């Protein structure tokens, strides 16, 4: 079946502009995660959605970052007033929540964000 998809694949923006990144999870997966991958910081967790529960926002680096998940499926990560340090690959993952904490996350191809 189809995997996790993300759009756009590449985004170049100017410092100070807002950007929106989109993630379509695997159909039927109830959990959705955002991570970012950068040279200096490696792979970092940003935010996690589980069903209708309040999201876990503990990884968001600043209040310029926000995300929403509409209808329990598609998610949008928004970065306001982008800074050069926001340049990274933003990865989305989804999982089908099994019992306990034994779900496996499947990753999308990422969106490469470059802030000039």
């Amino acid at each position, binding site marked *: 079946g189809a995997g996790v998809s993300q759009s756009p694949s590449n985004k170049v923006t100017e410092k100070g502009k807002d950007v929106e990144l989109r993630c379509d999870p695997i159909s039927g997966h109830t*959990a959705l*995660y955002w*991570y970012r991958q950068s040279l200096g910081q*490696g*792979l*970092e*967790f940003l935010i*996690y959605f*589980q069903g209708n529960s309040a999201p*876990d926002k503990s*990884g968001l680096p600043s209040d310029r970052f926000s995300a929403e998940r509409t209808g329990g499926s598609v998610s949008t990560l928004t970065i306001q007033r982008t800074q050069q340090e926001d340049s990274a690959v933003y*990865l989305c*993952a989804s999982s089908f929540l099994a019992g*306990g*904490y*034994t*779900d*496996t*996350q*499947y*990753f*999308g*191809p*990422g969106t490469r964000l470059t802030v000039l």
Partner: protein
Amino acid sequence: AQSVSQHNHHVILSEAASLELGCNYSYGGTVNLFWYVQYPGQHLQLLLKYFSGDPLVKGIKGFEAEFIKSKFSFNLRKPSVQWSDTAEYFCAVTATGRRALTFGSGTRLQVQP
């Protein structure tokens, strides 16, 4: 807070050599352990995972890993690498109360033909 350490940042091997990549984690509770691989130009893919049971787990493409609880380790092994194994390898952990993955810094493996 939990953390994951991968001590080998860059490994260069010749084809047919054996591979062992180290992974240590710091967390005292119940953990789930993963190895992901990122081939050049491709997205992260799951190699193998450990949730419970036999501490020796086998994954795709001939990879295996052994969970040693007393050493807080989950090392990745392959008896004979191929050029196509050139990639970056990430060890990751989830734990009770934390579904998000905590990743190690990654190991870049370069296999020379």
